[in-house]
């Protein structure tokens, strides 16, 4: 009899052996002799962590309960390996070339380095893997209890097995999973140990199988007869569930964090994958070979009620074959430990890289940091994450009571991680997939999985109240966790798989099509999708001279030939080289990069130099940095352009100012010329007639009188002109003082009409007024206003060319303003001249009339000073002027 203590001793010894294997492998790899560690066979064997304790023990249990259904779990991965190796190759290549460290990293990278997505996948993975780890703990505990039940003395001692196993595994994982920090997250020691475990579990299962078939059952023929006689023979294949389970296991094979770890992260080259493509299905086939015989014989031979999940162990035990039982135990132990170790490593990488480190970097800001600082933090966060992951697994194990069939727990886990599948697959093959789509799809799938499968798996009533299952939440029957949208009657697992993946995919594609990817997303998408067109065959320069020449050619393009030659010669001399080309040493390359950076920016310089020297592909980060630089240059040139526009604008303003000054100068010249004309004309008459009078011979008295009066009139004209000019000047300069007082409008008009008539006799202008309308009191400068009226009436006398000239003066109120219109019955002012007439010296009439053409200019100035306006009123037949007095002037006196 093997005692529990004995069993514990054997387990510890086995673990120590694994330690040794892992340790040696690490040392060998560290010394650089580890080529054989990358052997395809080791890679293939490491894939066997797919076969966990669930497969080792649970497959027999599943066969005993559900017949051949357990085969689907092997079928999915086999189909992937055989039928989709090209897709796997693409996935693995992407993983290698982008240094992908986990499935969370893959999705995060693909969708524009989205940390949010990384966190989401990490949470999903942790939550999805937790039941699986619990499953392993449970299987080890059950197997220990199986031994204990045979040995009455130690019965009940295995109570804390799960805790001890969890602690032990945490220790092992911490020691081997976080020994070093490799950029590629490769763990040669762990992989080697797992390969050994793969051999142990296969050997154990085969040994038990051989014992059962030939030792117990009596050969192949007898076993086949037993199978025919067993309930398994009557078992029929439910097609839908089979297809669903096969699909699910295929998806899980790709999406499980631990599978991604060994399949993609630990992969070294394509050769490994080529072998795994046929060898791994073979391994799975061997693992499944004796499942049915063991199940059938177990059902037949062991007492009814025995747990079929433990037949692998209890069959040898019942026959007293302790050695075989211990081997079987080690097989199961191997399955459990290898799964937990790799899963914990994969999950801790995700938690550390996507949750802990971003948080730490965020809160660390400002604090001093040494270079070793980050490394220690990373290691610590990895170790704590591993402990946390195992603690979660243990907690789930305790919560779920450890009573459920193993296979069911495994499928819960499978369905959870399968939610990553749509975003991952589309990310590899469809450029249109976007971060928002991935986030939305994942969230929806995760939520549906939690609600329909995960929470119910903890047991009805533990988290979700029983009423949820009978009536639905809040009585909404269509939201029942096992019959969403009222579609009941389905197997709960298939129900959850169907809805979670269907809604996930639907939301993912819809949101992807509706959202627009960021530039980095598009770059990453293109790189991921098209990776097979550009396999990682890097260009390599072998000779140092060739490199130097290439660098020279590039430098010439950027700096120009003379500078490039000078730079290279200087460096060559510094190195003591005979020729003009220096060795591409690190120092030289640094100098060169610095020189180039001055012209094209640091990022571009780095990308160019490393492209030539390293022959390495330029990474997306490099490209983005180049784009940033280009952006800065664009901004700089935009600023220059803005400045140049500013200058252009200033120049235009100066030109405009100059034009105005020139115009003013021209106007001033024209004004002086006008004044000259207006002054000289009367002076000419005065001079001419005074000379005539002076010379006086033969002039009659009538002529003498006439000429004297001409001289007199012209003198008055001169005086008037000077008065007007002075008046205008005062008004224009704003120096005028207004003499405000009350007055009646009708009186004002009376005086204006009289004054205009007095100044120019002989004109038969008839003036039409409506006295009743003129009854307004004004408070304004009465004299100035009457000056305006006199001017308007005088103009009508001078310029109205009607046969019976008449002027109508209309008064009315408009919007509170007082409006006085002067409209004559002549031909009026031509449209083009209507505004011009208010300018100085603007006489448009051909008719001979006195005045220098300043009247309307003065009137406009006066009206402006009085706060009113004067304007030409077009469309009235004759000449029409409108004088508007503001409300204040019109009403203040009332």
């Amino acid at each position, binding site marked *: 009899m093997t005692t529990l203590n004995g069993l514990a001793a054997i387990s510890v010894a086995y673990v120590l052996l694994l330690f040794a294997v892992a340790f040696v492998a690490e040392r060998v790899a560290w010394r650089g002799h580890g080529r054989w560690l990358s052997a395809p066979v080791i890679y293939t064997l490491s894939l066997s962590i797919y076969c966990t304790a669930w497969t080792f023990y649970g497959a027999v249990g599943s066969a005993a309960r559900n017949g051949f259904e357990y085969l689907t779990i092997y079928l999915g991965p086999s189909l992937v390996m055989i039928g989709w190796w090209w897709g796997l190759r693409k996935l693995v290549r992407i993983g290698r070339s982008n240094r992908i460290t986990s499935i969370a990293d893959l999705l995060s990278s693909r969708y524009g380095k989205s940390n949010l997505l990384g966190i989401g996948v990490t949470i999903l993975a942790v939550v999805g893997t937790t039941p699986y780890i619990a499953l392993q703990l449970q299987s080890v505990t059950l197997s220990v209890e199986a031994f204990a039940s045979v040995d009455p003395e130690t019965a009940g001692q295995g109570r804390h097995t799960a805790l001890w196993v969890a602690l032990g595994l945490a220790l092992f994982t911490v020691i081997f999973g976080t020994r070093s920090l490799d950029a590629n997250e490769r763990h040669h020691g762990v992989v080697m140990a797992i390969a050994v475990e793969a051999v142990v579990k296969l050997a154990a299962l085969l040994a038990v199988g051989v014992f059962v078939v030939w030792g117990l059952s009596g050969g192949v023929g007898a076993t086949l007869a037993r199978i025919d006689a067993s309930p398994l023979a009557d078992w029929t294949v439910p097609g839908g569930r089979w297809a669903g389970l096969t699909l699910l296991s295929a998806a899980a094979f790709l999406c499980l964090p631990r599978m991604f770890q060994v399949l993609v992260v630990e992969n070294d080259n394509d050769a490994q994958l080529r072998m795994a493509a046929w060898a791994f299905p073979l391994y799975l086939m061997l693992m499944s070979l004796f499942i049915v015989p063991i199940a059938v014989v177990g059902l037949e031979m062991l007492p009814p009620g025995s747990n079929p999940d433990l037949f692998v162990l209890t069959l040898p035990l019942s026959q007293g074959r302790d050695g075989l039982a211990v081997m079987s135990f080690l097989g199961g132990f191997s399955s459990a430990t290898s799964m937990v170790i790799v899963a914990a490593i994969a999950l801790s990488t995700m938690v550390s890289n996507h949750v802990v480190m971003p948080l730490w970097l965020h809160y660390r800001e400002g604090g001093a940091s040494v270079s070793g600082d980050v490394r220690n933090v990373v290691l610590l966060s990895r170790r704590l994450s591993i402990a946390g992951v195992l603690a979660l697994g243990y907690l789930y194990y305790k919560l779920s009571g450890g009573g459920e069939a193993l296979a069911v727990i495994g499928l819960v886990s499978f369905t959870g991680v399968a939610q990553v599948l749509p975003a991952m697959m589309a990310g590899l093959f469809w450029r249109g997939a976007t971060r928002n789509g991935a986030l939305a799809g994942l969230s929806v799938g995760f939520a549906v999985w939690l609600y329909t499968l995960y929470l119910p798996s903890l047991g009805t009533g533990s988290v979700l109240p029983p009423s949820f299952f009978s009536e639905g939440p809040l009585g909404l029957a269509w939201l029942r966790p096992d019959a969403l949208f009222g579609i009941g009657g389905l197997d709960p697992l298939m129900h959850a798989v169907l809805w979670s993946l269907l809604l996930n995919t639907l939301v993912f594609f819809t949101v992807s099509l509706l959202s627009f990817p960021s530039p980095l997303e598009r770059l990453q998408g293109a790189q991921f999708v098209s990776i097979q067109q550009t396999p990682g065959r890097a260009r390599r320069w072998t000779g140092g001279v060739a490199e130097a020449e290439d660098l020279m050619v590039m430098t010439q393009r950027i700096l120009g030939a003379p500078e490039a030659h000078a730079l290279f010669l200087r460096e060559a001399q510094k190195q003591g080289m005979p020729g003009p080309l220096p060795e591409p040493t690190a120092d030289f390359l640094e100098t060169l990069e610095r020189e180039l950076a001055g012209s094209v920016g640091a990022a571009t310089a780095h990308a160019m130099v490393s492209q030539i020297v390293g022959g390495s592909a330029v990474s997306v980060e490099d490209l983005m940095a180049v784009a940033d630089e280009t952006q800065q240059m664009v901004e700089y040139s935009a600023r220059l352009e803005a400045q140049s526009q500013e200058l252009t604008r200033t120049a235009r303003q100066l030109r405009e100012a100059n034009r105005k000054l020139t115009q003013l100068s021209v106007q001033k*010249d024209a004004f*002086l*010329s006008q004044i*000259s*004309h207006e002054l*000289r*004309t009367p*002076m*000419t*008459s*005065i*001079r*001419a*007639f005074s*000379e*005539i009078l002076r*010379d006086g011979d033969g002039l009659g008295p009538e002529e003498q009188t006439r000429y004297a009066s*001409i001289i007199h009139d*012209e003198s008055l004209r001169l005086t008037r002109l000077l008065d007007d000019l002075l008046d205008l000047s005062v008004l224009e300069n704003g120096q005028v003082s207004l003499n405000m007082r009350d007055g009646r409008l009708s009186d004002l008009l009376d005086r204006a009409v009289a004054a205009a008539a007095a100044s120019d006799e002989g004109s038969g202008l008839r003036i039409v007024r409506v006295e009743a309308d003129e009854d307004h009191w004004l408070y304004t400068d009465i004299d100035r206003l009457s000056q305006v009226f006199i001017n308007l009436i005088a103009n009508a006398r001078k310029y109205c060319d009607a046969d019976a000239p008449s002027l109508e003066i209309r008064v009315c109120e408009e919007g509170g303003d007082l409006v006085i219109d002067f409209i004559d019955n002549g031909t009026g002012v031509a449209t083009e001249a209507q505004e011009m007439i208010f300018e100085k010296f603007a006489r448009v009439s*051909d008719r*001979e009339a006195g005045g220098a053409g300043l009247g309307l200019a003065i009137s406009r100035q006066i009206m402006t000073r009085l706060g009113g306006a004067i304007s030409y009123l077009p469309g009235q037949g004759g000449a029409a002027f409108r004088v508007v007095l503001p409300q204040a002037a019109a009403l203040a006196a009332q």
Partner: protein
Amino acid sequence: MGGHVLLIEDEPNIIEAIRFILSREGWRVHTHSDGRSAVDVVRERAPDVLILDVMLPGRSGYDILRDLRGDPATAGLKVLMLTARGQNRDREMAEQVGVNMFMTKPFSNAEVLEAVRTLSAP
């Protein structure tokens, strides 16, 4: 004496003064005061001397003179130009269009008489 003078001027008092000065010395004086029809009147009257004001209603004296110089019939006409603006630019303009004599208002009666005599001399 007794030559024929055509005066194109729009100020009535100046017309009267010049007419008085010249006719007292035996000149036949015709007058016209509109710029637009001035060229036709000159052709029709064919004076010995033309006295031309610059600022005329409808058309400037410069334009009228340019037309006259462009027509062979009047190209050789003797022209005395009178202007009240009296800036250098006006003199230059007048010389450009081919004036014979240029005088700024106000003028002395004797000068006008002398100018007309000079111009009408063969």
